[in-house]
């Protein structure tokens, strides 16, 4: 047990609890709870968005992938940032001009049927929940390895902390926890990559040379193809990057800033921080290859890395900075997971209390106290569900759960959101039937994919040979929404199409948008 790790761990938890306490004094209404009063600056929100992106999956998972498979880890880095400029060009401002707290507001702006709200709220919750399970499992495993705490105890700890942050501190605490974590992570990444670059005399060529010399696969690690072996998987991965534009906990962040200007700035900052961090991750993964090589402390007797595929960054920090830095990085990794699950939990709470209770059941006439109470009940339920499912799925592959959530978002939320903003012909029927087909197709293809069919069910060969289904599901979603919209001859469809003009003016100018948020 590492004393420095425990110390840092206690420090970070204390900081986040202080943040939550301070935030709790500033929350007086639901606007504060859902959007931090809309008072964040572009820089703060940009850091928070990059915090949502820089999950433990990125820091530990992708450095691990670079360590084992080299270049293919870099492909994931590229696909992770690619969604951001498109969110900026197409979605962010219009989302803000049309919505109040969630992306479901935007989708149901002119699509009047309750089924649209029910469907997009449910697909939101599904995406959030699957993502959440992945993070909880990662957290439990990590804490088990780092601090020697039993798995169940560590997920109960995480589930309780995230519930406390959201219940008492709402969006303000969620954001500041994310900002603190993002800053720590960027600083640690810079330190690690800097140490590696100094080691090779600031020469990138030497870095690559030493990495290839120490890796069993040699120069093959610098070329694509060690991890993603077939073209369809690579293309699907590249396309899944757009799924980020359908993640509810990222989309809700655009409502936390004062105006469209700040919303744009937050994406600019986020793109910069994330892009910078992705490049660091590549350097750290490569550095780990030659720095860890030959150091028997980090390997089992038969030559496997201690703790598994996600551990290169952790071992590297020990090799570079000793026990103290190892403790620091472990605590930062913990904070990373904590911040991401907190954002997910808040997103689930606003979906249930705002989208379903206030807008759907009470038709916008809800009692604010009741709505806030309901969102807190949702937070506690989400915490309990997440702990339960995290326990059941503890041996599930984390990367798979993340990819599954992203594939769902890319096939359902993203097409529905984009088409509702840009295509006047879209109707409720098209959105719901099209979205539903994409949802079912994604689930079926994931079920038939090697990850589930072979690894979980134990069959020899998978009917659907690819890990990521996005290359098929996303086009199907767009086509199905298109087809079931144009064949919709109902009266409601006609009025929904007519309402597009009104929506268009507001989405382009912000004219008539909620003054509370402007």
């Amino acid at each position, binding site marked *: 047990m590492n004393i420095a790790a425990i110390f840092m761990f206690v420090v970070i938890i204390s900081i986040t609890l202080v943040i939550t306490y301070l935030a709790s004094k500033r929350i007086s209404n639901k606007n504060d709870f859902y959007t931090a009063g809309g008072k964040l600056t572009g820089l703060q929100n940009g850091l928070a968005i990059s915090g949502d992106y820089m999950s433990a999956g990125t820091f530990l998972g992708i450095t691990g992938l670079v360590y084992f498979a080299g270049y293919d880890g870099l492909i994931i880095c590229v696909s992770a940032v690619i969604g951001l*400029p498109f969110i900026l*060009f197409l979605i962010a401002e219009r989302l803000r001009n049309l919505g109040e707290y969630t992306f479901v507001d935007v989708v149901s702006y002119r699509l009047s049927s309750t089924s649209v709200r029910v469907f997009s709220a449910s697909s939101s919750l599904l995406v959030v929940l699957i993502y959440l399970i992945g993070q909880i499992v990662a957290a439990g495993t990590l804490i088990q390895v780092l601090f020697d705490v039993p798995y169940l105890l560590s997920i109960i700890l995480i589930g309780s902390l995230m519930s406390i942050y959201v219940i008492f501190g709402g969006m303000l605490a969620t954001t500041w926890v994310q900002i603190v974590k993002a800053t720590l992570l960027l600083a640690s990444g810079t330190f690690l990559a800097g140490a590696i670059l100094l080691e090779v005399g600031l020469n990138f060529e030497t870095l690559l040379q030493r990495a290839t010399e120490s890796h069993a696969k040699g120069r093959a690690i610098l070329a694509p193809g060690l991890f993603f072996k077939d073209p369809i998987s690579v293309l699907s991965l590249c396309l899944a990057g757009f799924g980020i534009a359908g993640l509810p906990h990222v989309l809700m962040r655009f409502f936390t800033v004062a105006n469209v200007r700040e919303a744009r700035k937050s994406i600019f900052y986020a793109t910069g921080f994330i892009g910078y961090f992705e490049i660091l991750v590549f350097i750290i993964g490569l550095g780990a290859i030659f720095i860890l090589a030959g150091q028997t402390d980090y390997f089992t007797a038969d030559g496997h890395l201690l703790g598994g595929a996600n551990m290169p960054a952790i071992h590297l920090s020990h090799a570079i900075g000793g026990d103290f830095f190892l403790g620091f990085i472990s605590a930062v990794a913990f904070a990373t997971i904590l911040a991401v699950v907190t954002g997910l939990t808040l997103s689930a709470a606003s979906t249930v209390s705002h989208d379903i209770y206030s807008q759907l059941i009470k038709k916008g006439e809800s009692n604010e106290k009741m709505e806030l109470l309901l969102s807190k009940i949702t937070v506690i339920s989400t915490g309990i569900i997440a702990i339960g499912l995290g326990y059941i799925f503890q041996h599930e592959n984390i990367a798979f759960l993340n990819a599954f959530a992203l594939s769902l978002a890319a096939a359902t939320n993203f097409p529905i959101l984009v088409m509702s903003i840009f295509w006047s012909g879209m109707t409720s029927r098209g959105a719901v039937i099209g979205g539903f087909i994409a949802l079912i197709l994604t689930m079926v293809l994931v079920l038939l994919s090697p990850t589930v069919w072979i690894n979980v069910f134990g069959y020899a060969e998978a009917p659907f040979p690819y890990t990521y289904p996005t290359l098929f599901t996303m086009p199907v979603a767009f086509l199905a929404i298109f087809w079931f919209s144009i064949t919709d001859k109902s009266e409601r469809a006609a009025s929904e199409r007519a309402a597009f003009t009104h929506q268009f003016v507001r989405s382009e100018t912000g004219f008539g948008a909620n003054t509370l948020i402007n």
Partner: protein
Amino acid sequence: MEKQILENPRFKSLVKKRNRFTATLIAIMLFVYTIYALMLAYFPTVLALPLWQGSFINIGIPFAIFVIVLTFGLTGIYIRKANNEFDVEIRKVLEEIAE
């Protein structure tokens, strides 16, 4: 009110200008990213070619970093134009309508 905005010449030209600008940026981003994705999928050996004889740096590494830097650059170009030009135009449109 909405009709007035829709028929406002300033609004019309703004929407046209903004759409053209956004479409250009999207086209650049998609073009570069599509080439990258297709090369990864179908010509990985080209990406593995060294930049110069004997170098460990191959075409694939700077290409990937270029895509990342490009996302940052294009978002920067967009917000400059949007915050300095388009927002001002929208305010003018709304002022004209209010009069």
